[in-house]
């Protein structure tokens, strides 16, 4: 039996209901200037927001000095416990040119009260029930983060890129406002089938779960059907950079091709060169080019210039 799943008949309803439930709760943002992380070229704020639940989230908002509006990078929630201001290894000077906003979804550090997620563990939390699956909340959190960012007057709404894993692409599909997406899918494309091809986490979480609870296989497949990127791709009109693993990685470019071809907007495919330098440089240059930043070299890490 194939583990590849089809789009559920009530896919749209599931997500409409999720967004409707999110809309019940205003974000009620609360700001605190973080002087320790502020510089002459950017001010950092800790931001608290309400999301689905209601659940209170935390994020880091960096605003460049000078007159905006500025292009914006939204770092959607990652699959790790730590929330970074900007990703490790990114030149701090990036904050001089972009508004950046990094959000911790429920369970991540700074958003871990009352729910503290485990890593590994988050991917299968509630996975046997689509209505209770923790990622329903995580996706809602990510949407709330983008909604918040778009309320900021410093942001140029014509230049907003969502960066992250599968959650970034899903966010761009179901929320308004993302003009660009940089996505490195790792969780929600053909999940059960691809998990069987690897023993590496996070997909190994699926293998662990199905080994422990074999009778829940159909329920897991049923839940994951609401999260499969192929179902979201036709709703993504943003210009997309799809970062695929090198050949043999799970998932690699071949595995992701159905997602790439289903995207409604323009898509650039980049296959990992197994170098964080080469892949990172490609991404930074792509974002800068898309956002009209002509001197990207000045905001690259020193060892990449």
């Amino acid at each position, binding site marked *: 039996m194939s583990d590849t799943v089809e789009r559920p008949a009530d896919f749209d309803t599931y997500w409409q209901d999720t967004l409707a439930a999110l809309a019940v709760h205003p974000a009620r943002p609360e700001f605190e200037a973080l002087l320790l992380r502020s510089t002459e070229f950017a001010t950092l704020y800790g931001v608290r927001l309400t999301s689905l639940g209601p659940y209170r989230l935390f994020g880091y908002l960096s605003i460049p000095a000078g007159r905006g509006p500025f292009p914006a990078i939204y770092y959607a929630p990652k699959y790790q416990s730590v929330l970074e201001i900007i990703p490790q290894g990114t030149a701090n000077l990036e904050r001089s040119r972009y508004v950046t906003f990094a959000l911790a979804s429920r369970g991540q550090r700074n958003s871990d009260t009352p729910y503290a997620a485990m890593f590994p563990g988050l991917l299968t939390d509630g996975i046997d029930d689509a209505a209770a699956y923790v990622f329903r909340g995580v996706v809602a959190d990510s949407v709330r983060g983008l909604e918040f960012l778009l309320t900021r007057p410093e942001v140029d709404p014509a230049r907003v890129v969502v960066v992250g894993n599968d959650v970034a692409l899903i966010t761009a599909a179901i929320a308004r406002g993302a003009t660009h997406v940089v996505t490195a899918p790792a969780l929600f494309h053909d999940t059960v089938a691809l998990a069987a091809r690897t023993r590496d*986490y996070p997909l190994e979480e699926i293998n662990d779960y199905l080994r422990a609870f074999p009778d829940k296989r159909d329920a897991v497949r049923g839940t994951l059907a609401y999260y499969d990127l192929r179902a979201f791709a036709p709703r993504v009109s943003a210009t997309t950079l799809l970062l695929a693993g090198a050949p043999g990685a799970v998932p690699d470019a071949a595995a992701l091709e159905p997602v790439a071809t289903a995207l409604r907007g323009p898509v650039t495919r980049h296959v990992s060169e197994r170098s964080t330098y080469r892949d990172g440089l490609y991404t930074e240059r792509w974002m800068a080019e898309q956002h009209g930043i002509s001197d990207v070299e000045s905001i690259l890490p020193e060892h990449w210039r």
Partner: protein
Amino acid sequence: MPRAISSDYKARARTPDDFDAFWAGVLAQAATVPLAPEIVPDPLRTSDEIEVSQAYYTSIDHVRVAAWYCRPAGRRGRMPAIIFLPGYQMDPPIPKAWARKGYAALSIAPRGKLRSLAQFNPGYPNLLTHNIVDRHTYAYRGFYVDCWRGVEFLLSRPEVDPDRIGVTGSSQGGGLTITTAAMRPEIRAAAAGAPYLCGFLDAIELTHTYPYEEINDFLRRHPDSRSAVEETVEYFDGINFADRIRCPIIVNIGLQDNVCPPETGYALFNRIASADKRLYAYDGHGHDAGRYKHGAVVDEFFARHLGPDA
């Protein structure tokens, strides 16, 4: 075209006169704390191939440290062991891959990491500068000891061959590999990738990326504390531990590493005392430090020195 890096780069790190006395005092204090090792089988993560347990032990300041402990399932007799030490922002992984190669594998979550944060949790960012003006309470004092105590945990396990223990990690895990290999003579082989916590004072000028940027943030906000910060980090700089390393060791760096500057990797390597050492410098690579290609080098290195009979 990125600039060329000099392989004889001279770092600012200078070993304090009382470096040995400081750490002897720390170790003496740690020795008063019973280890209290414990393993709790984790059936969810266990398979026919790998036994997975959650492990715990007590470290200095009576902080309870968590770890993942994996073994090849059904294996009889003593086996070699690997300690895996985590990166700065990494959630300590379940080291099934090492167990699959025939090792007992301990993946440590030092204080402040997920599963070890009930008693100490400065957060990220913040760990790097937590009490950085006082070496006696600096975050990495306990953090380092937590890693070193992992050796004692392995020695408490009847299935571990005490003469075949290795240590590895990358980034922060690489820096911790250096200090662990330096301070624990039981370590018989070490593989350090993209070592962090080495050449602090150079790194904060060579790069302006997090996590090192935390120190620049701190100094910008607290300029009067610069001398205290500089004094403290000398006690924790991996370069100042390097001349204690006697076991075989390999180090890999990326020449375009934007997180841990390659200059500091060279400076570290040049200070390592072991006669059996080798540096792998990967051009065209950043903080991955050539991981994809280097993985096979690490496997062969440990197989040669620890001899797993997988």
